[in-house]
């Protein structure tokens, strides 16, 4: 019998079954006074603050704009906005939208540096209900747009904390935009590059801000603009802001750790090559830029899988077009006088986007 008790003793000694419980009340005050056995690790500020919306590793979404009207001019030279007399074709659009895929993989993810590389793919299909033409139209841009607009790109983000409070953030991306198909892609000569460089501070776990400069296509054509980031979470942790002005700005409401809501806007845009109206010497590029006023609900479904539903209004900022010699882009800025090749218009539209996402730790 005593062997049996000894066996039991060994079993208890090696058992994991009591791993979550302590039978002894521990005096934690002994851990107040400590020394480092080696050197203290350098403290770097974290790229996140408390309660930011979860960063997405992989995302699959479907975006749809509800009925609206597209009016296009002839190809020519225009310096002003579209007048009634300039309209060459009109199309009533039933729906505009498509699939949006996004992947963002951390190559290096340490407290001293975070480097991520990713892919994105957007598909914008146009379903035309009705078309009216002003006389004979040759080289219809609507025919070209109806082929669908595709964006496929690579992006990279580097977050380098300098110390406990300061950091540098660099984002670069290269996108191939046009009415091409993946089976028959357009030349990489027409890649469009965007970048942003910011320096910022993270004074606390609930606030980070940064200022910087960006090269962006969010207004349709290439532009250089200053950027300002301000992420903040209230002390109650129920409210916050997620702002990267002027690209996007949102107020965040957290209902609980698994349910949150954003209210705000985002600027979206790209410069799309219309291949049927371009040749080797000249590239006709549609400068699509839009302002999306929206509410987004995000919900943790299970584990690290989140779902999102976005509802909002899409306001057209730009749907003009430029001829680019040899496909080389140029800088017009907000005040440039260079004439457009087309001045088109889109009426506003309600839209929704639904997505499922694998999110980051």
């Amino acid at each position: 019998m005593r062997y049996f008790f000894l066996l039991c003793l060994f079993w208890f000694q090696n058992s994991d079954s009591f791993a979550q419980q302590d039978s002894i009340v521990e005096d934690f005050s002994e851990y107040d006074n400590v020394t480092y056995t080696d050197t203290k690790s350098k403290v770097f500020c974290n790229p996140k603050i408390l309660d930011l919306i979860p960063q997405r590793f992989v995302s699959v979404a479907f975006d749809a704009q509800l009925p609206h009207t597209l009016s296009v001019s002839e190809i020519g030279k225009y310096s002003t906005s579209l007048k009634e007399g300039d309209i060459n074709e009109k199309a009533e659009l039933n729906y505009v939208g498509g699939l949006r895929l996004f992947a963002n993989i951390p190559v290096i993810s340490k407290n001293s540096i975070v480097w991520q590389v990713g892919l994105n793919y957007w598909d914008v299909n146009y379903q035309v209900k009705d078309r009216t033409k002003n006389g004979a139209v040759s080289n219809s841009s609507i025919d070209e747009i109806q082929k669908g607009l595709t964006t496929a790109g690579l992006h990279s983000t580097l977050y380098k904390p300098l110390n406990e409070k300061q950091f540098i953030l660099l984002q670069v991306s290269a996108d191939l935009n046009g009415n091409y198909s993946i089976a028959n892609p357009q030349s990489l000569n027409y890649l469009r590059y965007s970048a942003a460089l910011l320096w910022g501070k993270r004074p606390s776990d609930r606030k980070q801000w940064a200022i910087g400069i960006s090269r962006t296509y969010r207004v349709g054509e290439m532009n250089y603009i200053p950027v300002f980031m301000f992420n903040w979470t209230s002390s109650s942790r129920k409210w916050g802001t997620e702002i990267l002005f002027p690209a996007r700005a949102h107020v965040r409401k957290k209902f609980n750790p698994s349910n949150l809501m954003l209210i705000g806007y985002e600027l979206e845009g790209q410069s799309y090559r219309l291949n049927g109206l371009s040749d080797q010497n000249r590239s006709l590029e549609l400068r699509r830029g839009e302002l999306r006023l929206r509410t987004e609900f995000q919900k943790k479904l299970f584990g690290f899988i989140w779902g999102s539903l976005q509802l909002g209004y899409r306001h057209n900022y730009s749907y003009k077009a430029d001829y680019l010699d040899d496909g080389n882009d140029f800088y017009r800025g907000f005040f440039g006088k260079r004439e457009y090749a087309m001045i088109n218009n889109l009426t506003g539209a309600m839209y929704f986007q639904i997505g499922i996402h694998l999110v980051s730790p």
Partner: protein
Amino acid sequence: MKTFKKIFATSLLFFLLTSLTSDEGDRIIGLWEPSNGKARIKIEKIGSKYYGKIVWLKEPLDAATNAPKLDKNNPDESMRNVPLKGYRMLKDFIYNEKNEWKEGTIYDPESGSLYSCVINMKDENTLDIRGYIGVKALGRTDVWKRLMVNKK
């Protein structure tokens, strides 16, 4: 009785062997500090596995209640009244004799999220702790430093 003696002898041999082979893994036992300096974690061995509990917090009181911080972000409502001090945030690690403790989990009390985790010992005073989801590539590594308690 002979049968009991045989079982006892075999068990004794088994436990002795287990103890001897696991000594190398015991190097992780001790007091550690994550890179953000917000907490101190005591890693200990229970049975054949390694666990780490929070024994010190830089800000031990909840600003809203002025009471000791609780695990209020835990998705399991029944755990939200558990004090963070004493909470086992590292669980179930097994040493694999490649300077690596694996098959464990790490809990982040600030988000209430639980991640798979692997620990590598860079040197006797430094740990690389990688929390990840699914595959190690989808994760983040933090550097922890060893601390020594000063005797009173």
